[in-house]
């Protein structure tokens, strides 16, 4: 059905309702404005942070100076049909406003035929401080960035370890992050397990999935001598399949791990959910544990040795297959933990959540230096901060992920081995 006809039918259906409403209410109502090929619409809602503003007169003036007046409805809405394309000035008649309000008073919009153009006028109560200072905003974004960075770090340390020990860029890694969130939804939200029990179970299940993957897929493929490029394409296939498995089972909607809304704490200018604080603490503890294990324990040293030079490590008696199996297990467990925490702090997880953060993970790993676990940690924190801070520092919000990727590309120009990488790896 063409749009015009649909609009007409809608208008006919609504006409009696509107007529009824206009006869009972004294002031203007939510009439429809239907734009068509020779008319455009201007519309808006007048509201303060406290509520909507009915019965305010608005004057709309076109370029030639011809003025039209409308009055906002009970719900604060207004709209106007205009028969010219071009600039219009929308002005509030301040004498009809309630007292104690602050407003810019007017806004300029450009009408177009066939569409409804919103005209937004900011109105605040006098005692409302709308402008948080730049410094407070920076603080808040830094904390958000740190939070994102820590969660990315959990996943990217594993990604980097896998790259270091096997040389594989695992495109399915982000789907493991999604898996963590999805399992969290399934166990905690659907089956009502406690958050802590469920969380631990999720991590164990994810780690097991890593063990299983290496057992049935990656180790046999290594034995077959499949090249790294082929292996990488296998991970792409796995990632595609997993994404659609999530969509098949859970659907395309966003699901949440816990049903109730999180409680919020305030520290000066910083607002943060309690779950975020716990998530950050858990991340720091786990990352520290991984770091300690890598540096101080026997198996950690073996891992770093394999990562440095697999052939030499094997020659000096390290069971590389065992190390790689362990790396897969730990990496997937970390990814699962990252996933469930991500789902908790961002209020939900979706089949393509992993797809969205995959590039951030790669950016973090490459930025820090491919294959270095600590590089991935540093890279993840930088990427997290960049993503959250770039909108505050003037990048348009649409570009916050793009900024992170741009930084990655620029860094590769000057220092291709990454921040902590060694130059001989890039050859």
């Amino acid at each position, binding site marked *: 059905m063409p749009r015009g006809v649909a609009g007409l039918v809608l208008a006919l259906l609504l006409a009696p309702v509107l007529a009824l409403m206009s006869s009972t209410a004294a002031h203007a109502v939510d009439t429809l404005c239907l734009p068509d090929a020779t008319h455009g619409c201007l519309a808006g809602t007048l509201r303060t942070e406290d509520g909507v503003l009915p019965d305010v007169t608005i004057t709309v003036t076109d370029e030639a100076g011809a003025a039209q007046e409308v009055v906002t409805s009970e719900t604060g809405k207004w709209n106007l049909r205009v028969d010219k394309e071009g600039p219009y000035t929308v002005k509030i008649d301040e004498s009809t406003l309630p007292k104690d309000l602050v407003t810019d008073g007017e806004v300029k919009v450009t009408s177009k035929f066939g569409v409804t153009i919103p005209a937004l006028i900011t109105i605040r109560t006098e005692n409302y401080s709308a402008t948080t200072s730049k410094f407070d905003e920076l603080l808040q974004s830094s904390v958000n960035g740190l939070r994102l960075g820590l969660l990315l770090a959990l996943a990217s340390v594993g990604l980097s370890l896998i790259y270091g020990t096997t040389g594989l860029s695992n495109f399915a890694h982000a789907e493991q992050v999604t898996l963590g969130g999805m399992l969290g939804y399934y166990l905690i939200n659907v089956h009502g397990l406690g958050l802590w029990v469920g969380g631990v179970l999720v991590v164990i299940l994810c780690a097991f999935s890593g063990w299983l993957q290496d057992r049935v897929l990656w180790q046999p493929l290594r034995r*077959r001598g499949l090249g790294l490029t082929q292996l990488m394409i296998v991970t792409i296939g796995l990632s595609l399949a997993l994404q659609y498995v999530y969509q098949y089972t859970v659907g395309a909607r966003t699901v949440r791990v816990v049903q109730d809304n999180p409680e919020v704490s305030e520290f000066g200018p910083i607002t943060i959910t309690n779950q975020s604080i716990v998530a950050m603490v858990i991340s720091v503890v786990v990352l520290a544990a991984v770091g300690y294990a890598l540096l101080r324990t026997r198996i950690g040293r073996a891992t770093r040795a394999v990562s440095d030079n697999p052939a030499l490590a094997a020659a000096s008696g390290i069971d590389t297959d065992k190390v790689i199996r362990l790396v897969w297990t730990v990496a997937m467990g970390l990814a699962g933990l990252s996933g469930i925490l991500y789902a908790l702090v961002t209020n939900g997880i979706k089949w393509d959540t992993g797809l969205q953060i995959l590039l951030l993970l790669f950016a973090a790993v490459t930025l820090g230096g491919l294959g270095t676990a600590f590089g991935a940690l540093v890279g993840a924190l930088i990427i997290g901060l960049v993503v959250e801070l770039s909108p505050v520092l003037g990048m348009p919000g649409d*570009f916050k992920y*793009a900024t992170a990727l741009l930084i990655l590309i620029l860094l590769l120009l000057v220092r291709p081995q990454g921040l902590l990488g060694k130059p001989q790896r890039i050859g």
Partner: protein
Amino acid sequence: MDNIQYILNGMVREALSPQTAAVAIAVIGLNIHFGFTGLLNMGQSAFMLLGAYGFAISIWHGLPMILGILFGFGAAFIFALILGAPTLKLRGDYLAIVTISAAEIIRYVGRSALLVDFTGSAQGIPGSKYTTAFDNLSFFGNGSFTLIPFNYRDVADGAAWVRVIGWILVVAVITLIVLRLRRGGAFEGIAQAALTALMFVVGIFLIFFLFPVPYLSSEWWVRFVAWALVFACTAVVFLLVRSPWGRALRGIREDEDAIRSLGKNVFAIKMQALVIGGLFGALGGMVYVLSSSVQPDSMGRSLTFFCYTALLLGGAATIFGPVLGSVLFFAGRIGIKYIAATYVPDSVMSGQQTEQFSYIVVGVALMLLVIFRPQGILGNKRELRFNV
């Protein structure tokens, strides 16, 4: 029988669709990158998107179509230069990571609300804004028609055996063509080339005989142009890879240092390959949007991954692999979806789930393909120990 006819009809429709042809063109470009040169370009969808944007935005803003095409190519050209300059000297995975990141940046920029007057932001550019110029070039007249005026329904009143024999013949012709292509030398000498071409024509006639699809003449026009371009691109690649330059490409894929020691400028040759493959991608992008609209989100990473699946299915580093792979990929996916929708009861798998099921099969198929038959249908295993 009707169910089978319905499923096959859907598959043939999808196989002939202009978007299949468009992806085939992009895969031909990807084949130059990945198949012949061993460049791991994970951003082919960005080349497509840039081509589509250059084409659509120019025409939307009143420029002639030829300029639109040039802008599309120009955008892809510059993109290739920017991508290649920092990464072609590094190891392969860097190119992969940079191209996939750059492709995402392009998509984010296209989606940005700031550029709504140019790219239409996340809504994209509707086809009506730019396809008129192309449609006006059509010499197919008006109305709707089927390509071949007679079909199986005219023979013996459309009895089932006519169809069955037809299907067997189609399978036989396709098998023969594939065997000839695999054996090599299908185009050596005029007699061989004519025979292969004849088989192609017979196969296509058989398909139109068995699956009479009436389209509007404008739809035929898009399909005609799209497939003509596919064959033109195939011919170009055929000539390119037989040239000394083409041999240098394979040499770089096999052993970069050896080529360098012969005094070739490896960086320059890789860059040329990246640019040329990217231009094919841009052309594919323009064809992709001719029958629909420019949607940044439909030309994201998944499209690149589908391109790889199609390439590996047909056979990387072969001439006809990209075309065969694209056709089989799209027809196969729709086939899986229709089969699941027809034969699996709704209580087990809902209509929506059949779509997702088909993509799960695609992902698993990609894995199995790479593990068990990395050379694809037409490829040569010895040539394909590609490692970057």
